[in-house]
């Protein structure tokens, strides 16, 4: 526990505490406002549409906010020094080596995916997916005011991505990953000699299909099994389209938008599934699942 407190109070980790507090506070604030608006027939913002002069009504808010931010920043900087460790030394690798806090969610993903997915493909999809948001969300409601009931799906997906996948993976990666990137509960000491007893298996091996043949080449049956699982999972997208293509929503959405949305959502779901496949068995004393699909060129 003492070690946990030490890590949590490391100067460079303070932003994570603030992120956690900020995310919770602002979710609560937005939720309260949305609830209130949802019970009214015009959102509160619509009743505040009379024009006011920027000088002084907006400028004074900016002025006060500036003073508050500067005061907090100066206070923070006077009382807490930025860290400066020993001089850089290539021969001395710290264990664990961690990226800056805002990348720790991505670093944590390395547990569940190979680096090309965790470090390159997923970040790219996050960026591209975020940019696509305004073009795939064709719901005209809820533009410019807080609401939940008019855009439940969009808000749930975004909040899940931000609060659960982004924020809590950062928290997990920073506070609960010790030497060897092993998992430690807050009350456990980070033991550098800790060796995980469980061995990883591949999904096919759970069903007694060995991933590799005795000569260590890849078992084609396992490879085909993996392909079926992964492609089968992604085919939920097209199948759902075929079933629902005549509904109003799908007609409005159109095939291109639907393809983008379903691919992104399935990928997001896939991340969750792989996290569960990896973590859940450890808590049940079973072997964690490493890969779903092993090929000579890439593993998923």
């Amino acid at each position, binding site marked *: 526990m003492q070690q946990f407190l030490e890590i949590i109070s490391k100067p460079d980790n*303070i*932003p994570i505490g603030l992120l956690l507090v900020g995310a919770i506070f*602002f979710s609560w*604030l937005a939720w309260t406002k*949305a609830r209130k608006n949802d019970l009214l*027939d*015009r*959102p*509160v913002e619509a009743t505040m*549409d009379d*024009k*006011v*002069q*920027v*000088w002084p009504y*907006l*400028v004074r*808010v*900016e002025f006060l*906010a500036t003073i508050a*931010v*500067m005061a907090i*920043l100066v206070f923070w*900087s006077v009382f*807490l*020094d*930025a*860290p*400066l*460790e*020993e001089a*850089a030394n*290539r021969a001395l690798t710290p264990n664990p*080596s*961690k*990226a*800056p*806090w*805002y*990348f720790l969610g991505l670093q944590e993903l390395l547990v569940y995916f190979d*680096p*090309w997915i*965790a*470090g*390159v493909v997923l970040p790219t999809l996050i960026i591209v997916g975020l940019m696509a*948001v*305004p073009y795939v*969300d064709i719901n005209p*409601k*809820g*533009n*410019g*005011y*807080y609401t939940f009931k008019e*855009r439940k799906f*969009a*808000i749930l997906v*975004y909040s899940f991505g*931000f609060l659960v996948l982004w924020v809590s993976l950062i928290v997990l990666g920073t506070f609960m990953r010790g030497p060897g990137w092993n998992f430690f509960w807050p009350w456990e000491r980070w033991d550098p000699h800790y060796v995980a007893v469980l061995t990883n298996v591949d999904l096919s091996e759970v069903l007694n299909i060995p991933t590799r043949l005795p000569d260590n080449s890849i078992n084609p049956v396992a490879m085909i099994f993996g392909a079926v699982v992964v492609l089968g999972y992604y085919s939920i997208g097209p199948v759902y389209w075929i079933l629902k293509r005549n509904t109003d929503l799908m007609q409005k959405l159109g095939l291109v938008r639907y393809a983008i949305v379903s691919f992104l959502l399935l990928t997001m779901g896939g991340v969750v599934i792989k996290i569960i496949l990896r973590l859940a068995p450890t808590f049940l004393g079973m072997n964690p699942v490493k890969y779903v699909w092993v090929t000579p*060129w890439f593993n998923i």
Partner: protein
Amino acid sequence: MALMEKFRKTDLYKSVFRHSYQDTQRNRALQIVDNVFLHLHPVRVPRHATNIGFTWGMGGITFLLFLVLTITGVILMFYYRPTAQYAYEDMKYLMNDVPFGPLMRNMHRWAAHAMVLTVMLHMFRVFLTGSYKPPRQFNWVVGVILLVLTLLLSFSGYLLPWDQLAIWAVTVGTNMARATPLLGHEGPFGAELGMRIDNDVRFVLLGGTEVAPPTLLRFYVGHCIFLPLIAVIFMAVHFWRVRKDGGISGPESKKNF
């Protein structure tokens, strides 16, 4: 006071302040329009746009932090040389012997962390108020670019102290680039395309096969010149678009309600 009154009538005063300070509608408007900084704003806005509960002030605070970072950053540059030989020594010197050195460095570091935080919260707010919807779609895209630039600025600055924390965090972060599909030597189909440790994307990023002195110079130039310049350009576009898209979003009260 009489002296002040006299001063207000001089050509000097009138050349600087173009209108009186009397509290009239007209002067309130002139206050905004006649000031190069304030005229980023419209003269009048809908009342909900001045409500901090609506915008959380996060976009503005992000910009304020960027300004703080620019000023403290320039001061740090006076004391910092981006070579492996001096970088760490300069940091020590700054922290121990430069008057207000620690304050400047601390403010720079904490403002950088805070900016990453506020940009995420700003984005959360913009999402929750649906402010990316027409006609603001493109400004959201500009925003995503600003988010990426903010992260890159913070990450490139992390290396500059050239201590253990710096090089290993950046080593871990840039190791991902090895695994880039097609372009990294350990990525899928990288080797097939002739990628080696000394010619792939990571090599270009680091200026070598590991985080070494050339990386420091690369990150320094990126951090102090290239990235801030690009960020300023995108911020200009971002602010311009906020105005051109009709100011802060709000319910179209007459039409829909």
